[in-house]
């Protein structure tokens, strides 16, 4: 049977495009038994009594998800094609793609979309780089290592709402700690939350503070899996630190990098409470910081325009799918190129 459960180093067998994308999404460690291998396929003769159908095992989960996720989303789709403003009028009228047209025609939406993409790019990028740096820093045995690692993930452990409110204290323009410290070194008052151009970066700072530990944690775990011998062999061959990093560390960390980027992207596109609590409004000064999350909030729960809200929900879904798909494509292309070398 299969004895190669502990993965050896290697590049794995040739894969088709579909397998590539799957393996990148689901995991990229080659030379592991395929999911479902090593056990009798459902249709084989060895499927005797005492076995249980995998469909049966999956049924509860799938049914639950269908009811709780698929069905509501279908309802939302339905609503998004209608006009439904419960406060104004009890009726619900069909408007086809009217809501979507309204979204596209709304100049605010363009702003919202660019804000969200900007926030995503900046935050995920910063978290990625800082997380990697921190992981590299911590990837050494030193006294107090366990304590340091625990302290580093403290930001991640705080409830985002509380973290946002704490940071609100720091970035307050008049009384905040940040501006006070800056004034001590002679820098003038920075309009963190009251300037149109700084409001989104401020939100980004809070997000990055809170979520870099996630990246650091994932990368650190990945770094610790890299066998020492690879580095030793490379050093014997005269490799510099940069070459070690580029040709050993980076390839080994590729799955982690993808996890970090995908995870964080999916979570940041939906940012809501950070903006709401740090800026005390849906969009900050002049809606300069309004993101998709608060845009939806405004329409659905301030104006009680559920038709528009539903349409925006689908817009968010679409944006997420597109961004994730792009990232997957980019990462598989990168993998292909590397394999070809």
């Amino acid at each position, binding site marked *: 049977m299969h004895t190669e459960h502990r993965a050896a180093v290697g590049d794995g067998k040739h894969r088709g495009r579909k397998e590539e994308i799957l393996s990148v999404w689901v995991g990229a460690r080659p030379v592991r038994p395929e999911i*479902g291998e090593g056990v009798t396929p459902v249709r084989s003769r060895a499927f005797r009594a005492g076995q249980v159908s995998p469909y049966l095992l999956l049924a509860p989960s799938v049914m639950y998800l269908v009811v709780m996720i698929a069905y509501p989303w279908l309802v939302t789709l339905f609503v998004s094609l209608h006009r439904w403003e419960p406060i104004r009028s009890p009726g619900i009228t069909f408007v086809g793609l009217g809501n979507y047209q309204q979204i596209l025609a709304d100049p605010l939406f363009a702003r919202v979309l660019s804000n969200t993409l900007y926030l995503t790019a900046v935050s995920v990028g910063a978290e990625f780089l800082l997380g990697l740096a921190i992981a590299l820093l911590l990837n050494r045995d030193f006294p107090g290592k366990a304590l340091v690692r625990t302290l*580093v993930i403290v930001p991640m452990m705080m409830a985002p709402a509380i973290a946002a409110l704490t940071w609100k204290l720091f970035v307050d323009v008049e009384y905040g700690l940040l501006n006070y410290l800056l004034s001590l070194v002679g820098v003038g008052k920075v309009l963190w939350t009251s300037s149109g151009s700084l409001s989104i970066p401020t939100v980004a700072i809070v997000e990055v503070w809170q979520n870099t530990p996630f990246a650091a944690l994932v990368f650190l775990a990945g770094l610790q899996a890299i066998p020492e011998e690879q580095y030793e062999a490379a050093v014997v061959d005269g490799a510099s630190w940069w070459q070690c990093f580029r040709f050993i560390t980076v390839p080994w960390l590729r799955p982690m990098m993808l996890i970090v980027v995908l995870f964080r992207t999916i979570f940041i596109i939906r940012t809501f409470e950070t903006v709401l609590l740090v800026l005390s409004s849906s969009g900050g000064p002049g809606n300069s910081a309004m993101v998709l999350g608060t845009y939806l909030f405004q329409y659905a729960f301030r104006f009680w325009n559920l038709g528009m809200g539903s349409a925006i929900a689908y817009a968010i879904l679409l944006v*997420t799918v597109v961004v994730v798909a792009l990232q997957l494509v980019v990462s598989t292309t990168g993998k292909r190129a590397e394999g070809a070398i």
Partner: protein
Amino acid sequence: MRTRAILQGARYLLIGAVLCIAVFPVLWMFLTSFKRPLEAFTLPPVFLPVPPATESWQWLLWGMSGAEMTFGGLRTERILLLAWNSIVASVSSTGLSLALAIFGAYALARFRFRGRVVLGLMIIGTRMLPPIATVLPFFVLFRSVNLLDTRLCLVLAYTALSIPFAIWMLVGFFREIPVELEESAMVDGCTRLGALFRVVLPLAAPGLAATAILSFLLAWNDFQLAFFLTSDKARTLTLASVIFTGEEGIHWGPMSAFGTAATIPVLVFALFAQKHIARGLTLGAVKG
């Protein structure tokens, strides 16, 4: 040799800087819980409240032991209800989602069947649905069955979001376990499910723990779903931060005391569980 010492020194310095940045806001929140209302938000900022004012903590603790007390208009016995709602919602959803996910993950990990790949992708794909966008569908759904503002609706919602994540992680952990063990158990007369419960689950216990912890945190720290799906009776603890916003502004003292109290258990948790969490995050995802 000198360069190595310098590099080491620089490394420690950087680590120290990182720690400072990571810990400082939490520390500040802790200190603020001991400040008088005026001290919390003044210029120049007060770092260490001397002498420490314990009103905020007295309010929080007395409130927690049931005594009626108000602090600048805030109702304290409400905190107990909020905590209870949070606990019920988080624990129930974690339990429920794990129960369902264990079977599902086992099926994905150990069987080869038609539609396995597609189902797997779909399940994991639902994780991609941003909760803020899920809020509206949930709102519409729960409204239609009159379940808004109940603990039940929170449990149902959190479970729905937890299951895909739990399945994703558990599949990775299950695959870590060699099939031979289950097969020998079945040769000895065990049924498939028996093998699952007697062999796989005990061995995958650390993975189960990691998954449970993360699911729990997901529900416990959630803001968006609770914000929209509850209004009065089923409010959770994370939303309490909103309570502290009064007409005169934010009551920083009590809020910080509350925030500290809410964060400390999670921190202690983290101390013990951090190894498992890191392992869980990477194993579950990499080995797919």
